[in-house]
């Protein structure tokens, strides 16, 4: 049986003496779109930083595509794509040059072709030969997503992907995530604040409160379990007040 896309076991992390994540156990299967919810400072970005090998956990273990994020960094980075909260990229390069560079680092055999194909897939081929320094934040976000998927990763990590996007951009991003999931079977792990988007995109949600995972279930089960709440936002607020 194939290993889950993401598996955390008793994962904890602290900055100095400040605990940020506490004993998190979590399993995300391949093909899921997982929405990671939580207030500012709940530890969502720290979790992504650990899963993308940027920092090592203080204790516990994390596996991505069956590989340990500390001991098998090379294998993990070969199967993930990552879009940070604020994307800037190399301003002196064009969009295509940026993508080709990251594709080469990921070992893609024909980086230029992969860059062109990815831009076409995201319907922004017209940006290919423009320097990124001239882009608006929405355009940069699209190129950011392109760099995250240019090597067709199995698992895609998105950290607050809607930051700086206008409503049109948010909708476009939602469609892109669904398309990636449907076309390429990509597992998506997304940190976000926008609960409306989560209900439209995610198949599963997890709620983090002060470093503790207080809830994890499918969207369908969640709405069934909280029939009195009108929206996911109401459910989220109730969870927050219950745990407090």
């Amino acid at each position: 049986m194939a290993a889950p896309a993401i598996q955390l076991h008793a994962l904890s992390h602290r900055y100095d003496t400040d605990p940020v994540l506490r004993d998190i156990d979590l399993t995300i299967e391949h093909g899921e779109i997982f929405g990671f919810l939580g207030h500012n400072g709940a530890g969502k970005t720290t979790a992504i930083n650990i899963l993308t090998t940027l920092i090592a956990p203080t204790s516990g273990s994390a596996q991505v595509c069956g590989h340990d994020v500390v001991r098998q960094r090379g294998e993990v980075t070969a199967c993930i794509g990552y879009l940070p909260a604020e994307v800037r990229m190399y301003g002196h390069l064009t969009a295509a040059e940026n993508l080709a560079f990251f594709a080469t680092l990921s070992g893609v055999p024909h980086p230029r072709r992969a860059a062109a194909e990815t831009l076409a897939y995201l319907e922004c081929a017209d940006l290919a030969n423009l320097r990124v320094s001239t882009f608006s934040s929405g355009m940069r976000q699209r190129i950011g997503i392109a760099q995250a998927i240019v090597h067709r990763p199995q698992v895609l990590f998105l950290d607050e992907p809607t930051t700086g996007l206008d409503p049109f951009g948010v909708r476009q991003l939602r469609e892109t995530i669904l398309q990636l999931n449907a076309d390429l079977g990509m597992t998506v792990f997304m940190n976000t604040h926008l609960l409306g988007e989560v209900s439209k995109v995610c198949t599963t949600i997890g709620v983090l409160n002060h470093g503790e995972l207080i809830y994890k279930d499918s969207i369908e089960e969640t709405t069934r379990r909280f029939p009195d709440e009108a929206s996911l936002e109401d459910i989220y607020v109730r969870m927050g007040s219950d745990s407090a």
Partner: protein
Amino acid sequence: MSDQTVTTRVTGARRARVLAIAKHEYRAAVRSRILLILVVLLILVTAASVYIASAGYAAKLAEYETYRAAAQAQGLDRIAPTPLAALSLLRGPLEYLEIIGAVIAISLGYLSVSRERINRTLPLIRTRPVTAGEQATGTFLGAMGVFATLVATTIAVGIVSIGLLGRDWVNPGELFQIALTAVAALLYLGAFYCLGAIATAKSRFAANGLVIALGIWLLVVLVLPQIGDTMDADNQLPGGLFQALALDHDGELAVLQHFTGYERIRTGIEEASLSKHFERFAFAMSDVKDRYRPYNLPWLLNETRNDIAWLLAYAVAMFVGLRRSFRTQPTIPPGGTP
């Protein structure tokens, strides 16, 4: 698939990543306005320096040719060889490489690290199958590509100016000596590149790293050599003390035998300076110092072996430091977001 096939594939992938980073570094440097201004400045001062020196050289060469023609016309058997050395006109460019080149190298090292911080691209690189060592090696190779272009341009401007204005083209043997000087210049600039990158990577604020690196540059390139020069007995008289005493190199060494303690301190101060080692080697190879002119290449290499060893040791040590600082550089600043 055999183990050897897998190993070859992994090595090939690693090489491709290192080369991609090297090309990326080169392209970023070429497109940097700050670096462009510094490089243009270096080439301009090089051209001006060689232009001025070549004009005087051409006059002296014409004077010597007149003397030789007159001596031949009088049927003299022994004609004095020319006291002129075309390569010595490269003194200016070599000194500019030593001073301005080091500033360019430090700036490039600073830009390499700060660019990733400003663009927030370090996490994007580190979430690929790229090790910190590969990243350090790639950026270093890219910078060496920039320096190779810089040194080749500077020396080419010098050689062409000597030929066109000084009316004396360097011969193949001299060209080989210049090529060795260029290699030494690459090691020298590479060490300063690493200094700029290490200081920036180790600093919480990138600009602090640049200031620290420039402080070290001031000490290594200007202060220490100046102290060494001031303490040098030969510099106590205009034209040189030992020349005034009509002493050759062996004679000079015999005199200095009586001042070993003093000379040890002076040499120690000079040897702490990477610039002094580069200068000694470069000046020996390019006939800048009169005392080296009568000797052939093997003798010169033997005479400057200590400087070659120091240059290599500095460059290797700084490169090791660069790899280490890239490994320990935090991808995510303490406290959270990149």
